[in-house]
């Protein structure tokens, strides 16, 4: 479908916000579930965009900027794939191919972030010079310029995709054979694991693995919703913290060996 001027402007503003947030990580306009939904909202494609946002969010759950490491870029992935989905006019049927397009875009976005962060190094030196002069305004100015650069990082590619237009995008997507789109959908079901693996690797210790196992097994009971699992998880954490404190304070007294079953056996 073709977009009106107002729709195009709104989409580019959303893209700008997503780009800013890609570095700031505060309001989370760059998270797929927000960015895709907003683009769907302003273009009148709320339903399919919502599903795209949810699906991409699942894939991007574990993507986080930790220290100096940069995760695949959710901002470009969600903005560009939502625009492509809207332009293609395929509705819900286009979601899985839009996701397949999103992943290479996440890589491209990552490269763009690295470029902007390198340019920012130069800006910081301009701030140093301003600091020597005590020029507060100038420091603020360069900081805001750096944020705007991050916004443009996504807004410009978004504008380019809109400029290329609906027809080429639709042709591209329609020329994809079903074995390819089905295969990509299967791949999409698996790539979620990468994000989870990243998070687990950061958190895993001997102490927390049993909780992973309990969560895994309880999730097979499909009647328990995610909310329900959350409540069980919070309760387990509280129980564990309370019990581990009791164990600590009881040490050294009453022959408490920290092995309750052993204690019972001994007393018989």
């Amino acid at each position, binding site marked *: 479908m073709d977009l009106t001027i107002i729709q195009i402007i709104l989409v580019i503003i959303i893209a700008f916000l997503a780009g*800013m947030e890609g570095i*700031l*990580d*505060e*309001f989370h306009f760059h998270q797929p*579930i*927000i960015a895709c939904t907003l683009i769907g909202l302003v273009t009148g494609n709320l339903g399919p965009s*919502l*599903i795209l946002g*949810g699906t991409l*969010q*699942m894939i991007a*759950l574990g993507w*986080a900027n930790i220290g*100096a490491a940069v995760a695949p870029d959710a901002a470009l992935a969600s903005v560009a794939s939502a625009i492509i989905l809207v332009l293609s006019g395929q509705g819900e049927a286009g979601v899985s191919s839009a996701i*397949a397009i999103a992943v290479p875009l*996440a890589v491209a976005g*990552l490269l763009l972030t690295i470029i902007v*962060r*390198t340019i920012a*190094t130069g*800006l*910081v030196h301009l701030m*140093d010079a301003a*600091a*020597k002069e*005590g020029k*507060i305004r100038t*420091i603020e100015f360069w*900081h805001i310029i*750096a*944020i705007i650069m991050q916004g443009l990082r996504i807004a410009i590619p978004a504008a380019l995709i809109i400029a290329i237009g609906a027809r080429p995008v639709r042709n591209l997507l329609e020329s994809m054979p079903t074995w390819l789109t089905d*295969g990509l959908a*299967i*791949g999409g*079901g*698996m*790539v*979620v694991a*990468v994000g*989870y*693996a990243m*998070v*687990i690797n*950061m*958190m*895993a210790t001997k102490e927390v693995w049993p909780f*992973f196992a309990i*969560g*895994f097994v*309880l*999730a*097979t009971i499909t009647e328990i919703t*995610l909310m329900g*699992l959350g409540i069980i998880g*919070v309760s*387990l*954490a*509280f129980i564990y*913290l309370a019990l581990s404190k009791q164990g600590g304070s009881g040490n050294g007294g009453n022959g408490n060996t920290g092995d309750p079953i052993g204690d019972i056996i001994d007393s018989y």
Partner: protein
Amino acid sequence: MDQEMKLTKRDRISIWWRSTFIQGSWNYERMQNGGWAFSMIPAIKRLYKTKEDRSAALQRHLEFFNTHPYVASPVLGVTLALEEERANGAPVDNTAIQGVKVGMMGPLAGIGDPMFWFTLKPILGALAASLAMSGNILGPILYFVLWNLIRMGFMWYSQELGYKAGSKITEDLSGGMLKDITKGASLLGMFILGALVNRWVSVTFTPTVSEVELNEGAYIDWSSLPAGTEGVKTALQQYDNGRSLTDTNVTTLQDNLDSLIPGLGGLALTLLCMWLLRKKVSPIVMILGLFIVGIVFHVLGIM
């Protein structure tokens, strides 16, 4: 200067708002330094009036700084308290201020990452995404509102806490409370991750293991049903009684795996990804690789 210099609540609110943009000029040399200075500006304006003082303050706040963006707030709070003392003539030198910043940023990042990136974001995100995938607009609304309420609340209260406690905060930090929160967050996070791996990593194998012809009476005999709605009724009744829809019972490889525990394939894949990550394989290579595997296995008829 007889009058004591004091930051107003308005200054602190302004600093809190500015700290939202702390990562704005993130760079490879000194990371969050530009954003840190940007956040400190209302305090510098309030506390220092001469050009020399302001210049010195700006330069000392352009030093290296990097932590989780939200837990920068308590560090800001403490630094504000220190700057206030300094402006009032207390002997707080540059190294003391930089020392506090560096001393706090490491341990605090160790709290912020598991709390926000590894627990809150996956949990809220998964909850919202599962709503959104079923077409429910509440998903994104819930995510946006809850995330920002928690974030903004945390940043304001921890900044105030840091400001009021001043340099004493390091004692508070080593106390039990924060340790408990961090530990609780990682326990909860791992529990939810276990559930997410089971529910959302989808690995389905399609090859057929066996096809068994069913006995008469075990399946719905479509050719002998009465005509019209009566036939539909009979068919539904028979289905309800546990009769099969077809005359053969097809068992796929996936059915065999599911009878052990559903989600085994996803678990194995996740463990494989963890191992590859530890072998320093780039996540992006793995993501692209999995798409290729998906296509190839689908074409071969395995998935």
